């Protein structure tokens, strides 16, 4: 059988290489299967390519796409659940073997549509040297919201003119601000959307509270740069000591390890009412239009590539979180974790993690939400109003899915 | 009469314009013009600036469509034929050299287009370049040439093709007298040798008179006179034609100025060429010298008589000063009379008047 498999890459060159080599390895061991692994750009490009190809009549059989896009893909009637190709008990057991936090975004209505693979979660990085300079214990990151503010104030430095030269905290708010913000809402013990993906909670006062906290970091406490903070420049800002603490994805682990000119630590996000963080990243999906044989082969490939050895290789190469505990039991992984303890932080945080915001018409709804966040952060609206407006818009869109 | 243009040495072809007109907006540039250019002859279009010479030529070439009338070349109605199919050569008033091609390429352009073999092209190029004194300039671009050199290149492009019809629009106007004289002779010789039909626009009457088999004189888009150059000079049909040919122009004066003649010309106009007038004690024309202009071998004398100014050309060895009163005479056959009403030539009156002068 021949399979076409689209995969996006979001963390730089190594990832593409690894997927390619894993695929080659599989094909070498399974001569009856031919897999054409096609690099398909960013997640955004991948969706475009998948939908264009499907509408053009030549969908791929297998693709990786954002876990949050599950409802969209269902809505477009493009994917089929894995369940039909995982019939044996062994298969069912295998399915149980993923971290539950990752499965939240992968299942709906009792069916499994996505298999987690290229998954991540945000963590907090801190600059130990800056902590030392500020008179803080370099080994103790802030563990609560209050501590974050408190530490942040100590870490914020100004020059003679009163211009800030180092900010305490950096929570990026460009691109997909809702994701990191979801860390705050989770910590404030509120869920942004239901698991059916047809109702949001944007106007919950707890959400407003979380948003207010985020806004206050710059406006009230002065520990974070005001305005929209660029996602892509965040690691660099961290390296350049523009910010002593940053929140960003585990996908940056390798990057930070390679490039930070100082000692740094990695920790779970601080807690408030509870600990918490969203998951993120990509799942495997099976596509309509393929033959049974192809889909079975695709499912087998997915089973293989998410297997312990493969997932370990993947995690070590990219910094993504291996999606199954058994991967962490492999020798390779153990050595890696021992060698680089921060690698386990994300895994450990999974215990507290929730699904990434995901609804029907996901991109539109999240864009509405993002705009509300931006409006509050840039001071155009207060937090509560912004969120209420967003909720009203989201409701209008999602009503038809209830 | 219709010579097919098959081989390398085609004879000329007759050109016929029948009631051709061309209108620019409200302005009639060419107005109901009929001309016959016999095959193999050299016809010059002459006329003042803006009279429609270039326009006429361009209509023959097919670059301008006629608004009315028919054009025939070699008996074939070409009125609606595109320029490329009329099989003729042309020199443009503005030269129209291809700025991106060098002199050699400009000259052989047409041969290349018609896929003349390389050897043949080279040979002809060599001949033409020598004839035009361009041999040393063959690989220059037009922008590196002087005005006259550019004109010669344009000329070369037209004559190298040896087409049955050749059109030239003031091809010599930028050349010096010596070269012009040579080119005049050369072009004429070439035309005679190859036998093609030439329509040649010029404002230079020396060219017109020395080269032409037929001169077509235009005025404001209309035909003024078409005849052989000698006739044009000797028997101009209208005062316009009379004054247009000959430098300095013929003096056209009120008939009343000539006294003592057999015929009464008071109602008419008389024409007398400056070179036809001579100092004559008892001449019929009394005048006062207003000014003198020295011209090398000759001198021009502006005279005044009865309120009219006119010019006399005399050999420069005469000793005349401004202000003197003189009397002038002329030979009988040099008197031209134009009807006061129609403006047309009246040989009858001239003959009548002449009897007395000769006598």
């Amino acid at each position, binding site marked *: 059988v021949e399979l076409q498999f689209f995969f996006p890459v979001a963390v730089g060159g190594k990832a593409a290489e690894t997927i390619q080599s894993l695929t080659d390895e599989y094909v070498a061991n399974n001569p009856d299967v031919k897999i054409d692994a096609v690099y398909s750009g960013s997640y955004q*490009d991948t969706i475009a390519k998948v939908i264009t190809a499907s509408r053009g009549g030549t969908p791929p059989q297998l693709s990786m796409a954002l876990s949050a896009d599950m409802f969209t893909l269902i809505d477009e009637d493009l994917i089929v659940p894995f369940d039909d190709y995982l019939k044996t008990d062994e298969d069912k057991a295998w399915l149980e073997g993923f971290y539950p936090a990752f499965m939240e975004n992968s299942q709906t209505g009792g069916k499994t549509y996505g298999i987690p693979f290229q998954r991540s979660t945000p963590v907090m990085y801190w600059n130990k040297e800056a902590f030392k300079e500020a008179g803080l214990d370099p080994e103790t990151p802030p563990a609560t919201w209050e501590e974050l503010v408190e530490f942040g104030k100590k870490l914020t430095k100004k020059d003679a003119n009163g211009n800030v030269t180092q900010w305490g905290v950096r929570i990026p708010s460009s691109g997909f601000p809702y994701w990191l913000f979801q860390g705050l809402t989770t910590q404030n013990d509120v869920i942004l959307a239901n698991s059916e993906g047809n109702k949001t909670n944007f106007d919950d006062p707890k959400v407003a509270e979380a948003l207010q906290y985020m806004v206050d970091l710059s406006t009230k406490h002065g520990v974070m740069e005001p305005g929209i903070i660029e996602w892509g420049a965040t690691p660099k800002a961290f390296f350049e000591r523009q910010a002593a603490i940053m929140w960003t994805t585990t996908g940056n682990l390798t990057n930070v390890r390679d490039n930070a000119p100082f000692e740094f630590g990695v920790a779970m996000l601080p807690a408030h009412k509870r600990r918490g963080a969203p998951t993120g990243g990509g799942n495997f999906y099976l596509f309509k239009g393929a033959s049974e044989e192809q889909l079975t082969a695709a499912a087998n490939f997915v089973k293989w590539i998410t297997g312990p050895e493969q997932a370990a290789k993947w995690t070590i190469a990219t910094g993504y979180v291996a999606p199954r505990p058994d991967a962490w039991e492999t020798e390779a992984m153990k050595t890696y974790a021992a060698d680089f303890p921060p690698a386990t932080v994300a895994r450990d945080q999974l215990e507290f993690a929730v699904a990434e915001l995901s609804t029907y018409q996901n991109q539109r709804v999240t864009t509405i939400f993002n705009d509300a966040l931006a409006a509050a952060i840039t001071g155009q609206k207060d937090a509560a109003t912004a969120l209420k407006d967003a909720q009203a818009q989201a409701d209008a869109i999602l009503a038809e899915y209830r | 009469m219709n010579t097919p243009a098959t081989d390398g040495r085609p004879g000329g072809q007759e050109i016929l314009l029948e009631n051709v007109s061309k209108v620019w907006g409200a302005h009639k540039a060419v107005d109901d013009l009929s001309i016959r250019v016999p095959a193999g002859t050299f016809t010059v279009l002459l006329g003042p600036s803006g009279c429609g010479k270039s326009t006429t030529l361009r209509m023959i070439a097919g670059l301008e469509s006629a608004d009315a009338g028919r054009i025939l070349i070699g008996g074939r109605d070409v009125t609606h034929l595109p320029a490329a199919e009329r099989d003729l050569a042309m020199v443009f008033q503005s030269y129209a050299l291809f700025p991106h091609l060098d002199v050699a390429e400009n000259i052989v352009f047409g041969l290349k*287009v018609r896929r003349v073999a390389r050897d043949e092209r080279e040979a002809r190029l060599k001949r033409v370049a020598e004839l035009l004194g361009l041999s040393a300039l063959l690989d220059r671009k037009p922008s590196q040439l002087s005005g006259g050199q550019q004109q010669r290149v344009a000329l070369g492009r037209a004559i190298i093709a040896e087409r049955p019809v050749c059109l030239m629009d003031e091809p010599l106007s930028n050349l010096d007298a010596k070269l012009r004289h040579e080119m005049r002779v050369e072009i004429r010789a070439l035309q005679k040798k190859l036998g093609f039909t030439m329509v040649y626009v010029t404002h230079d009457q020396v060219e017109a008179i020395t080269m032409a088999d037929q001169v077509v004189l235009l005025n404001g888009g209309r035909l003024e006179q078409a005849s052989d150059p000698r006739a044009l000079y000797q028997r101009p049909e209208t005062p316009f034609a009379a004054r247009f040919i000959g430098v300095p122009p013929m003096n056209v004066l009120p008939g009343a100025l000539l006294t003592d003649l057999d015929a009464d010309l008071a109602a008419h106009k008389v024409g007398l060429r400056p070179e036809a007038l001579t100092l004559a004690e008892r001449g019929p024309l009394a005048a006062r010298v207003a000014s003198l202009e020295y011209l090398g071998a000759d001198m021009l004398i502006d005279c005044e008589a009865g309120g009219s100014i006119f010019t006399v050309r005399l050999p420069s060895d005469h000793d005349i000063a401004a202000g003197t009163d003189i009397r002038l005479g002329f030979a009988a056959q040099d008197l031209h009379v134009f009807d006061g009403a129609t403006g047309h030539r009246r040989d009858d009156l001239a003959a009548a008047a002449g009897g007395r002068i000769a006598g």
Partner: protein
Amino acid sequence: MTAAADAPARPRRRRFDLDRTLNTLAAWVLALMWILPLAFAIWTAIHPSAYEARFELLAPLTFENFEKAWAAAPFARYFLNTFMLVTLILAGQFLLCTLAAYAFARFTFPGRSILFTLVLLQLLVMPDILIVENYKTMRILGLVDTIPAIALPYIASGFGIFLLRQTFMTVPRELDEAARIEGSSILGILWRVYIPLAKPTYLAYGLVSVSHHWNNFLWPLIVTNSVDTRPVTVGLSVFSAIDSGIEWSVINAATLMTSGPLLIAFLLFQRQFVQSFMRAGIK
């Protein structure tokens, strides 16, 4: 770099020219501003990433970024594909646009305005909007995952037709006429008169078109699947990953690597621009 070729050095003193000096100065200031992104790209590409934001004269040089970039994708093959792609597009565009522009510039025929409007319309319609439809067409033609599939939607370019029309309109009519008199056919005139005289425009258009298609990304990504057909931009895009932060050193090294041929081509051709083949031509 051109000064030597421009004018034979005059041994004569020239009057100090304030106007000229000011102009030169301003031109240089602007040039420095304009080249800043390129300069930054070069700086980061040849230094370790720690120097992305620190401009120290003695920063250590490295070739590592280029090595990383080169290793990330089969760039050699991608270059070949891109080269074939732009050649195909350019050839097609030159041919089709020249013919069409000629028709619009020098012929009168019924429907000219309407057709020209349709051409201008193509300028307005962004090709990305048509991706889905065009993909369907390519599938029907069986061209998905081929280089012609990337090229075909672009070879009739409204931009090119419009540009060449504007240029052809400025060619002096006597030259056209002279060629006609010499017996040139319609295409002959185009080939021997219009095209040579529009050479600067062709050069400009060629450079612009090549750089545009060299850098085009979305459509090639979607319509191709295999290494044998994909252009360099697809390889380049691996570096504009969004999850991790921007690594300017590698991105810029990759950008320089992929745009290098274009820069070199421009350096080679730029002289032609100011060569003045038309100089005094139409005297």
